């Protein structure tokens, strides 16, 4: 049995070896267990993410309480942007009991979603974090919402919720000044997450929208309010296990904001501009408060709140009439003859006698080349008053030469051109006011004095915005360097500072204003047909009423200046064969039509500027448009009434 004995000895030794191996195995398990504890402690001490932190991260969830976005009111408290219930359906993939696809298809059928949308949601849900809720569809109507609610017991993992979303009751009317909100982009979420982890949680909340254009974008911090949060304990499926973990913060509502806009007047302006590609601005010449800031055609900002379809966006974005473009503030146009008010003031400042007459044969030769007047055959002999009334180019060529490029530029800046006004909007146009230094910075050769002739009649390199045109008109009429404002009252802001007076003598302004009066009211005026308000003042009430209500009453009149800005260059050859009529050109090549005006003449209060893109003629298209809008303004006279305050609105809300 020696073999057996050997075998038993071998066996015992082998058991010992295995025992040692086992001890090593269990030893390393224990060492590893201990090491994890040490690692946890060290990471805690070093301030790094420890396992304990990871547990808390798992265990506690910050439930964001997004505050309602600040309501936007017009000057009399009419609601221009508020919030409305947003019914939506969410899904938690983990909680669908393995029926994710099936459940989403059922929801899709209940909501009548198109097949491709359902497929897209299924794909997205499969990639989404299993324990997070994912948005299936929002902006549901009550029928859809209740349909899903009825079937909820059969749809594991589906949640039907009601949140609050931005709503613009007047749709397109205020789309440009107010702008719109959109869901934050993934890039924004990622970025804010890097700078502040809490912000990412806030932005991911399905109720959260951020201002994307207009006031919504610029007033974002105050409109957004301050998000509240509640720390809750959740399980792995995201279900709240305990609400009372302790910490929480109440949300602070977004700040209500009163705008200077007059709701009905803005809507009237939008309606009057109709299908034109146009912009209209009306402001108070004394305070700079903007009553109308309208760009046509409009678009429905509500379409952006829940995510606009790419097809719909493409249609808007590629439309020749540029509905998404804020023409009134961001648009840049050659001012054309409306700029002659600047040239006139600059020439007067240079000492030009307004009574001095120049003969207009229809052209003016300077530097060996002819500069044309718009009127074939010319105006004959005109003084400044007549030149403004008839918008004589030849007179203003000579007035411009008298003033000089830099004096004209300085006067333009004094009236507000070349300035990007701070009116709480993004992308405010500064425009271009070319002086000699500017010209030389843009070109290699010295400033050619012939440029001054172009500048004098509002052509050349000049670029102005409709807002600037109305500011210039208001400054001319008031003699004050008013600044345009769009926000009357918001969080921590109310009232305005008194504007300084304009450094232009009253006599000079009166000469120009008289010329503008002639434009609308004297024979030979370029806006004699389109510049008549057809209003009279009712002596008993002092209000402006339509002419037919009191033919004998004193007329309410306005003063204005037409402008027609070339979009194309007219060649010498074309001059010979005859300049093409605007009507024969395709829309995009036709001249822009402009008109600036101020009313009522006896006691100026409203300044108005209208630009109609490719509208062909200021006198025929822009002037009647401005007149019709101003007519509404004068009859309604919003500046004659006391605007409302946030305190009044909130007081009303409390009583209600």
């Amino acid at each position, binding site marked *: 049995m020696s073999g057996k004995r050997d075998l038993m000895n071998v066996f015992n030794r082998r058991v010992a070896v295995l025992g040692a191996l086992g001890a090593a195995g*269990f030893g390393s398990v224990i060492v590893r267990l201990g090491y994890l*504890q040490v690692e946890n402690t060290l990471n805690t001490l070093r301030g790094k993410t420890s396992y304990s932190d990871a547990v808390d991260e798992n265990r506690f969830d910050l439930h964001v309480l997004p505050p309602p976005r600040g309501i936007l009111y017009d000057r009399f408290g009419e609601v221009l942007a508020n919030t409305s219930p947003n019914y939506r359906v969410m899904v938690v993939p983990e909680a669908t009991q393995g029926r994710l696809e099936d459940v989403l298809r059922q929801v899709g059928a209940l909501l009548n979603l198109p097949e491709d949308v359902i497929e897209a949601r299924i794909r997205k849900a499969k990639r989404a974090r299993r324990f997070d809720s994912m948005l299936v569809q929002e902006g549901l109507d009550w029928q859809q919402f209740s349909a899903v609610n009825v079937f909820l017991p059969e749809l594991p993992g589906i949640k039907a919720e009601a949140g609050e979303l931005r709503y613009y009751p007047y749709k397109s009317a205020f789309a440009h000044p107010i702008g719109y909100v959109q869901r934050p982009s993934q890039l924004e979420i990622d970025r804010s997450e890097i700078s502040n982890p809490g912000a990412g949680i806030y932005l991911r909340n399905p109720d959260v929208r951020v201002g994307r254009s207009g006031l919504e974008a610029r007033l974002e911090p105050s409109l957004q309010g301050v998000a509240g949060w509640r720390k809750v304990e959740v399980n*792995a499926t995201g279900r709240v296990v305990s609400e009372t973990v302790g910490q929480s913060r109440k949300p602070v509502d977004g700040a209500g904001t009163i705008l200077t806009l007059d709701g009905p007047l803005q809507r009237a302006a939008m309606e009057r501009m109709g299908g034109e590609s146009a912009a209209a601005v009306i402001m108070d010449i004394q305070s700079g408060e903007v009553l109308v800031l309208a760009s046509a055609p409009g678009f429905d900002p509500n379409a952006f709140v829940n995510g606009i379809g790419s097809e719909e966006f493409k249609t808007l974005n590629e439309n020749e009439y540029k509905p998404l473009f804020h023409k009134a503030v961001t648009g840049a146009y050659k001012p054309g003859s409306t700029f002659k008010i600047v040239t006139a003031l600059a020439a007067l400042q240079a000492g030009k006698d307004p009574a001095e007459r120049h003969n207009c044969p229809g052209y003016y030769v300077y530097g060996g080349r002819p500069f044309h007047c718009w009127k074939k055959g010319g105006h004959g002999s005109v003084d400044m008053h007549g030149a403004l009334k008839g918008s004589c180019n030849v007179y203003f060529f000579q007035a411009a030469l008298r003033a000089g490029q830099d004096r004209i530029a300085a006067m333009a800046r004094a009236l507000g051109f070349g300035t990007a006004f701070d009116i709480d909007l993004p992308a405010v146009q500064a425009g271009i006011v070319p002086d000699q230094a500017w010209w030389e910075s843009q070109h290699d050769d010295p400033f050619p004095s012939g440029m001054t002739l172009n500048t004098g009649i509002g052509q050349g390199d000049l670029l102005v915005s409709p807002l600037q045109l109305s500011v210039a008109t208001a400054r001319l009429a008031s003699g004050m360097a008013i600044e345009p404002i769009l926000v009357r009252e918001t969080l921590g802001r109310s009232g305005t500072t008194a504007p300084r007076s304009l450094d232009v003598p009253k006599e000079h302004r009166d000469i120009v204003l008289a010329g503008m009066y002639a434009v609308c009211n004297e024979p030979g005026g370029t806006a004699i047909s389109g510049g008549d308000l057809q209003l009279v003042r009712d002596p008993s009430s002092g209000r402006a009423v339509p002419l037919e209500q009191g033919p004998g009453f004193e007329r309410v009149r306005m003063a204005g200046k037409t402008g027609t800005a070339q979009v194309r260059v007219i060649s010498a050859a074309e001059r010979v064969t005859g300049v093409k009529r605007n009507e024969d050109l395709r829309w995009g090549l036709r001249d822009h039509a402009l008109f600036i005006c101020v009313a009522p003449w006896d006691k100026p209060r409203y300044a108005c500027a209208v630009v109609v893109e490719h509208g062909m003629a200021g006198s025929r298209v822009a002037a009647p448009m401005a007149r019709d809008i101003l007519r509404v303004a004068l009859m309604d006279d919003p500046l004659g009434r006391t605007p409302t305050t946030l305190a009044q609105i909130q007081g009303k809300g409390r009583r209600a």
Partner: protein
Amino acid sequence: MTLQINNPRPTSLADRLRKMHWLIITLLCALAAIGVLMHFSVTDGSWTGRPVDHATRFGIILVFVIGISLLDSRIWIALAYPLYVLALVLLIGVELIGVTRLGAQRWLELGPIGLQPSELMKIAIVLALARYYQNLDPRRTGQILPLLTPIVMIGVPTALVMHQPDLGTALLIAGSGFGLMFLAGLRWRYIIAAAAVALPSAIYAYFFVLQTYQRQRVVTFLDPDADPLGAGYHQLQSRIAIGSAGLFGQGYGEGPQSQLDFLPEKHTDFIFTMIVEEFGLFGAFLVVGLFVWLLTLVMRVSVQAKSLFARLAAGGVGITIALYVLINTSMVIGLVPVVGIPLPLLSFGGTAMLTIMAGVAIVLSIHLNRDASTSRSFVW
């Protein structure tokens, strides 16, 4: 047919019960009780459901185990080959049925307790190999045939189980099989030769031939069922739970990772994590300590047995239990990939418990008959 018995085995039932290895049974009960406690920890204060099921299952199996261990230990040697053949046939049968049913059927329903043929194989391989070496002339252990026969006996079921696919069980079968070969006196030169070839080439392949994603894929390919939620999730949550536990844990019923379901498979494969989370390093030492104690007792039974078969069978059971516990604990603390091996006696589910308890029944039976020595010329 000769049967040589040096000492008479205990005769009366009372005598046998008195000589029963009660310490091992106590340890089993302690471990199972910890399992019940942990299952109760994650119910909402109700014993019904997992805690009661676990206790009931353990109780029934334990009664059977004690009953079986009272039987004549020679039945094990008699059953060794038949059991192995039966397990092999069932494995092949499951393989064939599995093919026709797209792998849906791996279970055989035996009354109230489902049994997987692969589980039966875990015990059968130990018995069959012990039986093989029992009859092997020690002088022949260096020859080729006695070397190759056990390798084939291990290799065939391992390959079948791996093809199911069930990497964890295949590892266990192969591990206990080769462990038993080692105990039986496998020459060191073969071991060294095998290691010299296999280890470097495996290491080389793993680190230099395979890309990271392929390494991951190796594990996933071998056992796709083990880790369906994405490779990292289970182990990450487990490491978080363990790392945050500290010396004494978060307290019974207070482990957030377990209680709030962040820890997946906490009832089954990851129950050790839950123990550590709620009882800390102390709890880990306790459970590991109990298992080590149990293993020590099993190996002592093995060493004290007279017959080679008994020694190898008990040793093989010890190796199986050790592999279960080592692989499971290493898996939940992230030392080895997740391969789907439960912690015996604690994890919920009857399969591993049945396997381990069957093994323990063999050990208890060998202990009762520790003085019996069967001759190597013994033929049933």
